[in-house]
């Protein structure tokens, strides 16, 4: 009978939490994997139109966003390292920088999409449906893939903000940082997917 409260005292298993996160990241990669598959099939089918359509994207904004995400991936890793050295303040600042980078990425994306929308180029628009098949599929993929990626950015931001407030309240600390570590892993995933999206959509042309 005296053992009934064991549930609460059972040793925490951070390794299990991390294993779970890696498995979840697997599924996210597969989710995008389906889109990469569709991309390669249609690229194979319409090589010239994909080439033409890709020229219409703004490589500069894409490159800036790539740098922003790479920097944010670095700062989130540094934030974890800072927490592991018990530097709470630095960890929090670095996390805020990460979230700020994510916000910057979204702002850039907003302007990039905004230009296209102004030209009448958005999913379901009349202009889209008048395009050649290859260009239509290219822009559909562009909006679908970057849109889904932006959704992941938002989810990642929320996780990192939760981690921020938990560091603040001391629930995430030097001895217990699985949440921040998993949030950082997720953020690297978001970064990684963009590293694939950027060359596929912007650079190969």
């Amino acid at each position, binding site marked *: *009978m005296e*053992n*009934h409260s*064991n*549930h609460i005292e*059972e040793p925490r*298993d951070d*390794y*299990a*939490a991390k*294993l*779970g996160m890696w*498995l*979840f990241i*697997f*599924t*996210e990669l*597969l*989710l*995008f*994997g*389906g*889109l990469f*598959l*569709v991309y390669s*099939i*249609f690229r194979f*089918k*319409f090589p010239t139109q994909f080439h033409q359509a890709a020229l219409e994207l703004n490589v500069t904004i894409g490159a800036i966003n790539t740098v922003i995400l790479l920097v944010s991936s670095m700062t989130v890793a540094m934030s974890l390292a800072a927490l592991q050295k018990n530097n709470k303040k630095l960890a929090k600042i670095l996390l805020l920088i990460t979230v700020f980078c994510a916000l910057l990425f979204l702002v850039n994306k907003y302007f990039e999409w905004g230009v296209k929308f102004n030209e009448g180029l958005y*999913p*379901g628009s009349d202009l*889209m*449906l008048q395009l*050649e*098949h*290859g260009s*239509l*599929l290219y822009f*559909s993929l562009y*909006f*679908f893939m970057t849109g*889904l990626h932006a959704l992941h950015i938002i989810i990642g931001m929320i996780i990192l903000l939760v981690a921020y407030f938990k560091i603040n309240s001391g629930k995430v600390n030097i001895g217990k940082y699985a949440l921040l570590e998993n949030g950082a892993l997720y953020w690297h995933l978001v970064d990684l997917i963009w590293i694939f999206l950027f060359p596929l959509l912007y650079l190969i042309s």
Partner: protein
Amino acid sequence: MANNIESTDYVSYLDYQGKHKGIFAWILATDHKRIGLLYMYAIASFFFIGAILGLLMRIELIAPGETIMKPQTYNGIFTVHGIIMIFMVVIPGLSVVFGNLFMPILIGARDVAFPRLNLFSWWIYILGCIMAVSSQFLRQGPPDTGWTFYAPYSISTGTNVIMATAAAFVLGFSSILTGLNFIVTIHRMRAPGMGYFRMPLFVWSLYATAWIQLLATPIVGITLLMLIAERVFNIGFFDPALGGDPVLFQHLFWIYSHPAVYIMILPAMGVITEIIPTFSQRKVYGYKAVAFSSLAIAGVGFLVWGHHMFTSGMSNTALWFFSLLTFIVAVPSAIKVFNWIATMYKGSIDLKPPMLYALSFIFLFMIGGLSGLVLGSLATDVHVHDTSFVVAHFHYIVFGGMGFAFFAAIHYWLPKIYGRMYNFKWANISWAIIFVGFNVLYFPLFIIGMQGMPRRYYDYLPQFQTGHVISTIGAFMLIIGFIMMVINLINGARNGAKAPANPWNGNTLEWKIPSPPPHENFDQIPVITEDPYNYL
């Protein structure tokens, strides 16, 4: 039995008082056993709805022409029957119910690795179910695409395809989280001494299933999202008028949905592998072969999806390749069947109700499996493609396989779950009615399918009527047997005689704790020193 614990001074999980009261003590419970029961009640209810829809279809088909419903209603009903039965009943099915109830106990753990995530999965499952059911009642009418949502019809039909596909997406998310939870649990929470090859084989099959859930479900997730985007924004991926490719949809759909068949059947095979040694009092023949065959089925199962599409248009190389791989997947399945039979050899076989269901599982699964080879061969598939032969094959595997394994499992574990025993005589009678009714229902479909009766048709030529009438009679027998079984089980669970801790003389860990299990499963985490099936 030395391992029977006197069961007076402990709190069972059914009586446990947590911080929540009333119904909240259940729907907010993180205890894996309570979550397993929540899944069981939900799945049993949806199974009943799906079965009624199936019965309505059978009544409609009792005579050519209009019998009790309009063609469009019929299209809606077979779609809804498919969506409910596939996504809400058999895909979660055994793994969420008996996996949740018993997997942690079988590996000597107090709970799964992430109990709150486990509860969250149940809530997502319920959300998905509500969405799926609501798609039937919203204004545009129930979806009429069949559960496969083939493009381009699913893009152009005016019915509630978006709600139904979104529901399937949400249900898939729940499935992924359960799979993830189980993998981590099996890796991290095994009791001391419980090496991978001392795990009960049901756990092995759940492990293989969990990997399929994890690796296959995201593909259908993204495919369904693309289909929704296609309907809302005309993105053109699957619409030939916009340069897309409808066959691509079929590929993406079956890359998930074929492995999904193994999500359904692997835990069923695992349950059978638990029941047969217990009721033969014999060690499982070829433990490692059975364990690895689960992994082999899971692995090869990813590479056979093309056999659903032999008539859709593929290169001849792809065709024979998929056909070859389909035959290869029959090998590990056959290993299991042979090992079950070899396990019974010279055993003291005890024909209690769980064993009757397990044996009929082997019989029906063999008919289903062998008819699958007819469909896996290129030449014969063209003849029987999209006929009721496919319907019969599928139901022999999924209902005769997974369904009967579910019935076997509930008869096997009910005394453990509720601490009470059902009536054997009524269990045997209802088993006999269900078994006969099942064969009367589905076997004629093989024959009229060979003769050319197409599947999903509302109307048919008069020469098929005999087969349809026999089949409909079988449907009524089946549903009567089913109702008898449920009444007997509910009656047993409520008013049955108190069950001992180990009514079947089983040797796996769940039989070494009291019935019903204590809230924490084990007072002391057990140390495992022997194999799970040491009967001799």
